[in-house]
């Protein structure tokens, strides 16, 4: 290894203890023999390394933490989600109770949830309508039967004005 290569290593890996042990020893023995490289190592340590070592640690002013704390608390307060409308909350609760493991991020899943809710509402609506229709039909049928029977049954009254009150006044 020539002096140029060794000087490069002295400037970097050697002075910073980044060399593997075998190479480090080779350079150490070279430095003992080569005056130029020895001078370089001494100058390097004195002029470019030692001035920066063992400096006092700087400590920031005590008020800095208070400033940071205030900012953190303010950010926490402002980043809290706004209260959602009750209706949305209800939908959200239904969704969570139906699909507790569903993630928030996937739009497709949201669509599925809302579609399911819609289907439930539609089903309830149709069923309700059918029940109403059945009850209505029964009522109409009953009424029709009554009207038909009104004129045919032998109850002592005639078809027209056949009530006891009418008979009394007439």
């Amino acid at each position, binding site marked *: 290894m020539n002096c140029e290569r060794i000087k*490069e290593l002295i*400037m*970097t*890996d050697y002075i*910073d203890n*980044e060399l593997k042990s075998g190479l480090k020893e080779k350079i150490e023995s070279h430095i003992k023999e080569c005056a130029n490289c020895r001078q370089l190592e001494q*100058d*390097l340590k*004195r*002029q*470019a*390394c030692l*001035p*920066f*070592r063992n*400096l*006092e*640690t*700087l*400590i*920031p*002013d005590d008020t*800095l*933490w208070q*400033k*940071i*704390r205030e*900012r*953190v*608390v303010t*950010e*926490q307060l402002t980043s809290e989600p706004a209260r959602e409308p009750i209706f949305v909350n209800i939908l959200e609760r239904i969704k969570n109770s139906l699909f507790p493991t569903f993630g928030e991020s996937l739009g497709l899943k949201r669509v599925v949830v809302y579609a399911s809710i819609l289907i439930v509402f539609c089903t309830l609506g149709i069923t309700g309508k059918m029940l109403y229709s059945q009850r209505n039909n029964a009522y109409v049928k009953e009424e029709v039967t009554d009207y038909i029977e009104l004129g045919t049954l032998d109850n002592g009254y005639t078809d027209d004005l056949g009530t006891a009150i009418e008979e009394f006044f007439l």
Partner: protein
Amino acid sequence: MDIPREILLEAQGGSLEAFEKVYKASSSFVYSVAFRVTNSREDAEEVTQDVFLKIHKYLKGFRFKSSFKTWVYRITMNTALNICRRMIKEQSKRVDYEDVIATIAVKDDSINSVDVEHRQAKVQQLLSKLNFQQRSCIILREMEGLSYADIAKALRININTVRSRLKRAREALMGIAKLQGGTI
């Protein structure tokens, strides 16, 4: 800066007390690095504040794949670099970066009396002669004692780039010493 994993997990969960412990354990090195880079106490405070707000914001996403310290170094260096860029922009009339840094070095007159502070000022003067990339490497290597691998991670550069930047920085520093008669 050795922060127990439990404290970091608590801070991730939103505990302000745990976050305060993280601050107390790491604020001095963040502030020191920021001061070395920006060369101004005011800017170093701004960098430190920004760094901890970023830590608080992104801590939940920290997955312990790298060391917490390396992660904090990376945030600190990026934030300090942004502040330096802003300063350069503000002083856009200046001819080159070196002039700007020299101006910033003169700006901070709070360190000039006691011996320790005199040494600090001397160091800042030397650092101001290096460009940002060289200065970052010298700070992380000489003052913070990071290995080449950790510097590469903190600055997101190749390990050989770390080597070449350190070499150029040291050549520049030795050049200054030569101009001053061999002493710094």
